[in-house]
């Protein structure tokens, strides 16, 4: 915020008052952000991506209220296991309790606020603050305070305000754990809606019905707003342009080098890179689904590669046999046949069931975001299937990915453009006339290169930013 302000008014606003209407998009209404105007009908105002005040409000109204993905049950298997994560800009710990239930605790001490766990994960019997050794139980209750006698009688160790703050609601869906910092709101199943299919499909792909996060993970940072990630994930028009360099390289190499040994991944990386070479004709064969609660997904995208549904090799056959043993042939066909890419659960999760992976979006500030990528081991599937998931994750989500690095570059260019350019409102109208409502659901679907997913996300944004005023 500028320094020279009159109370409740920023410098920019003062300039606006003086009639410099070109500053309109930079106007900051401190206590009265106009959600309706920002969401717009044709696209959002640029300040939705650039204004720290809007970001602050998003953290309060969206990230502190809706269901936020906080981890998978396999990441904290035993009592005392904890994992550090975040709900918006709040750092929290996901903790497995003594009775195997789960809890989200804020990672800062109730005494004078010190960060409790600097470790990203681990196992504890209690949380001891490094500053004055206040000791908290796994459930966040205060167990001990050194020299407690020196406190006045008003100090009661059982006072809940001296316990670690916790998330009032935590629920899991088949091992996927979500938390809400709000006492009220829709239950998780209603919130997820049709997206439970994506989670079901991922779990069902394990012959033994158990999946676990394994094989390490990535954390990738970009200087851009958190919304840009989900807006891009189901954008079917960009791949041909943004990923042109890797598409061209992959195609050239397919022509020239056929038959050459590729010990590392047997052509998977090359196949994935080539898959982005979509022409306008291809855009219109990808089916898009956009839900009124912000979620969206597209139909199959990576048609070649080691984990593609069309794949037929020894490993795939062994895997299929194991699945058929567990589910029968018909159901196995249905499970392996579900060809959906980028199942976006708004606002912070992307589930790629078919490739056994997820991405998690962590907003850091209005123009800084961290993306985490994880993959799963499917119990009962051949080890080689797990290696393929790892490979897929590396090809797509590594900071050095030949594909993702170009998306990250575009996110940063959008941010730069919005912060330094003159665009007042973005345009989100592509496909608006051809989106088809799915009867009675409030959901839409499209078989054109539609920006439907953006409109879904915008609708959810508008709802949560203004709901419960």
């Amino acid at each position, binding site marked *: 915020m500028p320094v020279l302000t009159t109370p409740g008014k920023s410098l920019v606003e003062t300039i606006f008052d003086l009639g410099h209407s070109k500053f309109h998009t930079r106007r900051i209404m401190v206590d009265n952000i106009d959600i309706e105007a920002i969401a717009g009908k044709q696209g959002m105002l640029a300040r939705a991506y650039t204004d720290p005040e809007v970001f602050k409000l998003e953290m309060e109204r969206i990230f502190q209220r809706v269901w936020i993905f906080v981890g998978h049950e396999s990441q904290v298997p035993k009592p005392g296991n904890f994992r550090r994560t975040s709900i918006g800009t709040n750092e929290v710990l996901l903790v497995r309790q003594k009775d195997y239930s789960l809890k989200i605790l804020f990672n800062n001490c109730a005494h004078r606020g010190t960060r409790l766990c600097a470790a990203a994960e681990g196992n504890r019997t209690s949380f001891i603050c490094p500053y004055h050794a206040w000791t908290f139980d796994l459930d966040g209750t205060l167990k001990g305070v050194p020299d407690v006698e020196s406190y006045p009688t008003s100090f009661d160790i059982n006072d809940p305000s001296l316990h670690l703050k916790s998330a009032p609601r935590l629920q899991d869906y088949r091992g996927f754990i979500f938390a809400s910092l709000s006492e009220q709101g829709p239950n998780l199943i209603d919130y997820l809606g049709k997206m439970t299919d994506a989670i079901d499909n991922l779990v069902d792909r394990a012959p033994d019905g158990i999946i676990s996060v394994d094989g390490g993970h990535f*954390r990738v940072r970009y200087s851009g707003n958190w919304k840009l990630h989900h807006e891009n994930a189901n954008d079917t028009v960009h791949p041909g342009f943004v990923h042109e360099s890797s598409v061209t*390289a992959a195609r050239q190499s397919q022509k020239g080098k056929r038959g050459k040994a590729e010990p590392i*991944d047997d052509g998977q990386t090359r196949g994935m890179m080539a898959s982005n070479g979509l022409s306008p004709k291809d855009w219109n064969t990808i089916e898009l689904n956009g839900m009124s609660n912000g979620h969206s997904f597209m139909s199959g995208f990576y048609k070649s590669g080691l984990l593609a549904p069309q794949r037929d090799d020894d490993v795939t056959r062994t895997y299929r046999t194991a699945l058929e043993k567990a589910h029968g042939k018909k159901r196995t066909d249905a499970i392996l046949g579900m060809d959906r890419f980028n199942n976006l659960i708004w606002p912070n999760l992307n589930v790629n069931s078919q490739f056994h992976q997820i991405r998690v979006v962590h907003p850091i500030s209005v123009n800084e975001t961290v993306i985490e990528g994880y993959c799963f081991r499917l119990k009962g599937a051949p080890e080689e299937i797990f290696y393929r998931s*790892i490979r897929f994750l590396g090809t797509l989500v*590594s900071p050095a990915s*030949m594909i993702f690095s170009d998306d*990250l570059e575009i996110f940063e260019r959008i941010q730069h453009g919005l912060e330094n350019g003159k665009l007042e409102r973005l345009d989100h109208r592509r496909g608006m006339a051809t989106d088809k409502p799915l009867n009675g659901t409030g959901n839409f679907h499209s078989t054109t290169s539609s920006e439907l997913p953006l409109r879904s996300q915008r609708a959810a944004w508008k709802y949560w930013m203004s709901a419960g005023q």
Partner: protein
Amino acid sequence: MNAEVLLQNNVQAFLIHEADLLDRGLFGEWVDLFDEDGIYWVPSSPFQEDMLGQVSIILEDKELLKLRATRLAHPNAHAFSPRPSTVHLVANISTTLEGEDVIATSNLIMTVFRNDKENQLSGRVTHKLRKVLNGFRIQLKRVDLIQAGGAFSAITVPP
């Protein structure tokens, strides 16, 4: 010069040449330094032992490295345009023999400058080198970044 000093000198010259190719953006020639079955590996976490059972920032054979070089040469490699300027500083080199091959360990500081922003990647590098006529070919180059496990911005120039 005794054999040990000679080897150390030759390895050092090779590593400096490699760094120079990377800094000049001659990625095709850099890939040529790899043996036909050579591997370039940047693990995703410190002390990573498993090449296949854990994700890597980069794990590529020579064909994939060629793909990487071809892509970087494309005018629309957006993350690489404008091209970052880099300097790979290679130091603390030591060499040992492993059968016919040479194991060279070194420390790396790589500074990247692009769009008015400076970034640094640092780490310990292990080269497994095969002796060939007039020099070496890379069997394995492993780069253990001290930043491994942290949040990275996009990486285009190989460390």
